[in-house]
């Protein structure tokens, strides 16, 4: 049988996310409780988390999280790293024995910087360079898989129920100001840890509930822009779409949302001229990036989270606020489990963005790309 990643598996899911807009750090306990409440939305075949702000001591390094099939793959990869990177620190990611987590691969992390000679010509940004390296390693099928590559953030995922994965990775010991989580219900036998959510690229992380019926149209378009969809998962495609639109093409997240979940033409036709021109152009130019089919996603970045439904809301998504906290989850109960009395609870409409940005973040209004923010961090 083909390994997951060699073919495509649709799945259902639970998602949850928390952000403190003023950047107050919290441990992973809350997000684990929230996702654990939605235990029945997953089937024990995949769970994972993304956490931001967890590596302040290495905030200028790219934190690479990797799965290895064995020590040979690790040595080969480290040799590859030594060609391109200066490694500040590395080691196995600490885990704790959990009765329900079995067959874990080798899980390591590396805090690296690209060697300056590769960037000196000024043709390539550090981010572009990292994207190329991640694509290269994941495309080599050499038994190594990069599942997290951002700065001061990390993904933690594997095969199991989300709450067990959280326990396994000792997330209660990390402190971050943004957390997202995912419990997976794949419709096929997995067995590969790389198939769990979140999917990440640089600082982007995506947890996703849904199946993308436009997958192959999206994938084949992205491949023209040098993304290699090695995992054959819907979610991977979402991460690359936002990377292309926001980081590489410099569009605002509003426009990116209008590309992946655009208003219907009947609505665009009725917009005031300026707005109409923008929505029309975005839809025409990026028609192949419309994400069709049911989805609710939480997109994490170093500047906050965004939650978004497909344009006819075929998957659940609820949002709530309490003070500086913003919560989003597949079910309201998963929010009330950790925040019993929110100030406001609402169900976003199809295609309507839910913003959970850190105070002072430029993501919302200028459309500046994360690269610039990272550069000044």
């Amino acid at each position, binding site marked *: 049988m083909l390994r997951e990643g060699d073919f495509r598996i*649709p799945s259902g899911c639970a998602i949850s996310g928390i952000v403190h807009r003023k950047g107050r750090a919290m441990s992973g306990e809350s997000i684990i409780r929230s996702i654990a409440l939605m235990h029945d939305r997953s089937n024990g075949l995949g769970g994972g988390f993304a956490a931001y702000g967890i590596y302040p001591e290495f905030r200028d390094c790219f934190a690479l999280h990797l799965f290895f099939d064995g020590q040979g793959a690790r040595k080969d990869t480290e040799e590859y790293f030594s060609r391109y990177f200066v490694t500040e620190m590395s080691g196995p990611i600490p885990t704790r024995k959990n009765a329900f987590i079995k067959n874990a691969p080798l899980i390591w992390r590396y805090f690296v910087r690209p060697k300056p000679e590769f960037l000196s010509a000024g043709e390539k940004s550090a981010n572009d360079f990292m994207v190329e390296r991640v694509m290269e390693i994941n495309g080599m099928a050499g038994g190594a898989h990069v599942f997290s590559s951002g700065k001061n953030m990390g993904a933690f995922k594997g095969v199991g129920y989300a709450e067990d994965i959280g326990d396994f990775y000792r997330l209660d010991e990390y402190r971050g100001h943004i957390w997202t989580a995912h419990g997976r219900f794949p419709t096929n036998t997995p067995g590969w840890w790389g198939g769990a959510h979140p999917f990440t690229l640089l600082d982007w992380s995506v947890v996703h509930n849904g199946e993308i*019926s436009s997958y192959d149209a999206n994938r084949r378009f992205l491949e023209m822009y040098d993304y290699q969809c090695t995992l054959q998962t819907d979610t991977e495609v979402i991460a690359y779409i936002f990377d292309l639109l926001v980081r590489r093409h410099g569009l605002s997240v509003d426009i990116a949302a209008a590309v992946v979940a655009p208003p219907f033409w009947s609505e665009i036709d009725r917009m005031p001229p300026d707005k109409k021109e923008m929505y029309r152009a975005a839809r025409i*130019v*990026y028609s*192949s990036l419309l994400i*069709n089919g049911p989805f609710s996603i939480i997109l994490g970045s170093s500047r906050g989270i965004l939650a978004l439904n497909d344009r006819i809301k075929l998957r659940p998504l609820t949002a709530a606020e309490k003070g500086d906290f913003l919560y989003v989850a597949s079910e309201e109960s998963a929010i009330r489990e950790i925040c019993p009395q929110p100030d406001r609870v609402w169900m976003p409409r199809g295609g309507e963005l839910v913003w959970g940005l850190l105070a002072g973040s430029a993501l919302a209004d200028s459309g500046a790309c994360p690269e610039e923010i990272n550069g000044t961090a």
Partner: protein
Amino acid sequence: MGFGKRALYAIERDSESCTHCRICVRQCANGVYRLNPNTAKVTSDEAACVNCRRCVEFCPAGALAIRPALAETISNSFWTRQDLRAIQSQADSGGILLVGMGGGSSIPSYFDRMLLNASQVTNPSIDPLREPMELRTFLGRKPVRLELDEKGRPLGLPPQLELELPVLFSAMSFGSVSLNTVKALAAAAQSEQTCYNTGEGGLHRDLYPFGKNTICQVASGRFGVDIDYLNAGAAIEIKIGQGAKPGIGGHLPGEKVGDDVSETRMIPLGSDAISPAPHHDIYSIEDLRQLVFSLKEATVYAKPIIVKIAAVHNVAAIASGIARAGADIIAIDGCRGGTGAAPLRTREHVGIPIELALAAVDSRLRAEGIRGEVSLVAGGGIRHSADVVKAIALGADAVYIATSALIALGCRLCQKCYTGRCGWGIATQVPELVQRLDAEEGARRAANLLRAWKHEIKEMLGGMGINALESLRGNRLMLRGVGMSDNELRVLGIRAAGE
């Protein structure tokens, strides 16, 4: 020692019900029937029958039936009747065999070997009666990225053809078809917000009001081309080749060049209109680029330029060259495409099926990262809405139809267009035959066909869990193949059913 003219069809007349009313005599465009003045009964010359069905359908008594002539020739599995007849006919005449319309050969239909997907459980299907379902289609060059000005407004896009469904009427010239046929297609295109195509017939003065729905073709004969013509349409199509006869030009016999055709094509009355096989100013791709940009200059870069080619072996590389030569849209015409007249051997043996050509072109343009530079329109053998859906899933932006459109207008596919004696008023310039096609009724029927297909496309899209056509474009995971070799699957870029 000729073989004489052999009847291909047997006409059965039920003597009980026939009243000898002579309607068949008046309706037959080929002079099959005659009233015998002595017996006051109608007799038939079966050898003249082309099986256009006109008499059968107009007989008020239902007394007529036309069947294939039985055992008129001995044949075996290798030497078919058609082969024997062809040899006999050529031994008589010493000439090239001609045929009309398309699709006669027995090569496999890959459309019929591909099956579509539908959503079950993990992904809800979408009901087009309850939810919006979008088929709006834009044909034209797309920029690599959305460029914004300093105020954040989008910079202007290259010109786009905006259609409400991904189906256009393919090129059919006034001359090869009647003016009523062109009027019917133009009006249907207008009512359904798509386009029809002038072929190389020029633009009749009555058709200028349909400009927004007109694609003006420029072919090797340059018939009817002047600046008013170029500016009249929504897009300009340079015709390099045609699926029914790749590598061959066209020939409209002088007897079809009456007053209107002469004026519209800007050629002398009664003269043969010969379109050479190559354009006399295009001997390579760099020459094509000059013509593309000449036309863009002439129309101030306001209209997309289409380049139409026949699907031939090297179609992917040719398409890549055309994209780089500045075309905004490439139309690929497969070997099952129709025609008013083509040499039989060319139609049956030159060119490749549109399914394979389209898949190869789409894959190649993506591999080169230039798929966005051009839109792809696939034609040549699109019979119904499922063919449309499959073509788009393979990678087309839209499809061209012509044979299906003519069948909607009344064509019975007798394939004798080249005789100019079309019994249904379509492929003829004979006034009493032309008037058999009512342009308004034809427009209604062609528009109905488009609307019916639109409903069906929406149903199939919804079944796949898709509510915007662009999400199907190039989405080959929605296709699976049956009864194909690994190589065929590889060229199509699809998996086998069950995989």
